[in-house]
């Protein structure tokens, strides 16, 4: 048990260090960054803001991590968010009870996942192309549902999901924390994590070992669709309306970035959902920090890009190799694995 905790800490160390450094930088450019207040039964403050605003990307990153671990990618999640937001809004406007609205929306997210999964696992289309289809078509579908307008609703139950609070935390924070940890635990307590990694590293060998690869791939894309549906509900509930044009726009790229910053290789295989969640928080902390710092907004994207480049450079195999070399040199007696062949 202690051993596995150690392994996890070792795995998460680079992401945690990066997050801490970003938070320190935020404090330097905005002195009030760490102050947290308790008002009207919930917490307020920049840190809470980071957790709250980061919810959509964190949720998308959960599904994206699993899809990327299977050596795939899901470009459609932003569009699926828009579809699901539209479905939720139109269902709410129609007067459906909240439970039905949620079931419908999550169901549509799963169906989007089934579509992607079908293209990838049954028709064997390359994931980047297969999910591009829905990425393009998705916004059109969402516009059809909202009939081109911003569809507003005022069901307090639905709105609560976006802006309510639970044990002093905003609902989106509670949602992504619980969901992300639940998925991470599910994958590691069952054999799913191992099987997903095996498929991502060598699909053919995995099939020959008796793994039902098509089913597993389908499940990965369905999970990604489900994550996008939840994120879509949160975004729609937050603004009390469905905006087919802008909901989730470019968020698929942030989600992929969160996974990469989290240290999961785009080549598939080894993955960590927790690391991706930290990655999502790193990205959101950068966003919020730049916003609060008062830099001219035109610098924001450039600063963000620069910080991300630095994080990726530190994680790159070349730099890691140098770091390993240095640690090996300083502690030569430590039994470090290296191939002697």
């Amino acid at each position, binding site marked *: 048990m202690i051993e596995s905790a150690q392994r996890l800490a070792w795995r998460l160390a680079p992401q945690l260090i990066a997050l801490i450094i970003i938070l320190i930088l935020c404090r330097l450019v905005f002195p009030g960054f760490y102050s947290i207040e308790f008002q009207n039964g919930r917490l307020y403050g920049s840190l809470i803001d980071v957790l709250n605003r980061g919810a959509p990307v964190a949720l998308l990153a959960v599904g994206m991590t699993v899809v990327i671990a299977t050596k795939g990618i899901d470009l459609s999640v932003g569009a699926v968010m828009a579809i699901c937001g539209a479905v939720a809004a139109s269902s709410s406007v129609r007067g459906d009870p909240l439970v039905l609205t949620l079931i419908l929306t999550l169901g549509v997210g799963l169906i989007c996942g089934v579509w992607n999964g079908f293209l990838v696992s049954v028709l064997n289309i390359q994931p980047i192309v297969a999910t591009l289809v829905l990425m393009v078509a998705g916004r059109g579908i969402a516009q059809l549902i909202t009939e081109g307008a911003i569809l507003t609703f005022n069901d307090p139950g639905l709105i609560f999901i976006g802006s309510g609070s639970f044990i002093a935390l905003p609902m989106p924070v509670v949602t992504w924390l619980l969901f992300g940890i639940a998925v991470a635990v599910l994958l590691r307590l*069952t054999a799913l994590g*191992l099987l997903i990694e095996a498929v991502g590293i060598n699909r053919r*060998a995995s099939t*020959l*070992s008796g793994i039902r690869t098509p089913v597993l791939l389908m499940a990965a894309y369905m999970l990604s669709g489900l994550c996008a549906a939840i994120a879509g509900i949160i975004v729609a509930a937050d603004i009390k309306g469905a905006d087919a044009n802008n909901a989730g726009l470019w968020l698929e790229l942030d989600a992929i970035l969160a996974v990469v910053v989290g240290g999961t290789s785009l080549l598939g295989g080894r993955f960590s959902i927790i690391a991706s969640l930290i990655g999502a928080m790193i990205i959101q902390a950068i966003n919020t920090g730049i916003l609060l710092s008062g830099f001219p907004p035109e610098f924001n994207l450039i600063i963000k890009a620069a910080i991300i480049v630095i994080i990726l450079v530190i994680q790159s195999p070349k730099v890691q190799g140098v770091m390993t070399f240095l640690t090996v040199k300083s502690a030569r007696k430590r039994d470090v694995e290296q191939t002697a*062949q």
Partner: protein
Amino acid sequence: MMQSNDEILSATAIVKRFPGAIALDHVNFSLRRGEVHALLGENGAGKSTLIKCMTGAYRRDEGSLRLDGVEIDPRDPLDAQSLGIGTVYQEVNLLGNLSVAENLFLGRQPRRFGLVNTREMNRQARALLANYGMDINVSRSLDSYSVAVQQVVAIARAVDLSGKVLILDEPTASLDAQEVEMLFRIVRGLKAKGLGVVFITHFLEQVYALSDRITVLRNGQFIGTRETASLPRKDLVTMMLGHELADAEKELRAHQPDSGNVRFEFNGYGKAGKIKPFDLSVRKGEVVGIAGLLGSGRTETAQLLFGVDKPDSGTATVAGKTVSLNSPRAAINEGFGFCPEDRKIEGIIGDLSIRENIALALQARRGWARPLSRSEQIALADRYIKALDIRTTDREKPIKLLSGGNQQKAILARWLATNPQFLILDEPTRGIDVGAHAEIIRLIEDLCAQGMSLLVISSELEELVAYSSRILVLRDREHVAELTGGAITTQNIVNAIAASGSEKAVQ
């Protein structure tokens, strides 16, 4: 003729350390002009490390390296290449989607007005390959040619670029007999031109057919350099294995007469375009061997039996019950296991640990909801690492870092962990060193004695003869003969493979 000034490349007292291990311990190696020098040793002996030190892929820790009497210190393989040392690896390191000519002249294409002069390049490529007695269409993509032709292209490129020393790292591992002969002709030609050739292989016959001298390494130690002509094969094996010799020598197992019940039966089983319908029955505790040339339908037979390909005719019966084997999973549920020919692509999950690779098939059969706990996986892995003598410092090491023989054992372990009734082995001993080779053969015999049924495909006929109680011979995607009992001899197999016409030679 054999003076020291004939030496083109000499390595003296090379030492290479890795954290926790000495990979090369004062190893000497010298290569003469116009000789083929075989570098032999078991996996892990240090052959690859020595080669990598000579080609600059690794930096040596001690020792000196001289080329033409001049001290050299190549920084990387490119540097070594420009000094005159070229290397051709077992897996051809070329770009299959480019044309043959482009591969030959990659990075130094003849230009005209700053653009690649394709016509000139193709002309030069044809001229270059003509030196090797090859007349092929150089504008076709490289992967449209056989591995043998790709090897020759790789050699032509390496020689053209370097021109003093050519290192061949297991070039023949995936070639058939005819292709090997072609390759040898080419190597002899290069030798006559005065090149020094270093030849690494696991096939001892090839060593005797081609090499002038032999250097043997064992566990990173230099064992010795001998003239091939004056080194009996038995002595060579002793040099390579040390004391294990007596065990490694093949003892012919008495062929047991067919007994016991037929457990696995296939009637009229086939798939159009892959393999013609065949009948096959396998008894408990029986090893059925499959012999045939590459492309004769050996692997296709195995894949059909394991459900990788779906049969379009015939029935399969397991223990008297008709079953449908439409996927590997269905076959596994009937107690099948399959060690494929291409370990890297179809066998190992490279980035996963040895532990996870061993546990994988069992885990897949149990389903995702019933995970093997970490401690169960560890127990499983440790048991098979010990039982099969998988040589590794740590069960948590990614399996891709193991040598070929140990990877093969780990994949065998993966299947043994599922306690299979019927194990299909496709070329279980290909590309494996002599020591592991003998161990795997012993393992096949043990499993058979424990009552497991095995189907073994192998190009090494002596090996098949040693452990099979029946041998099926394949030719042109058809099962053409079945040899049993006393009829099982290498000569009979060769005759059956070579026989023309398709009458069945059932003995």
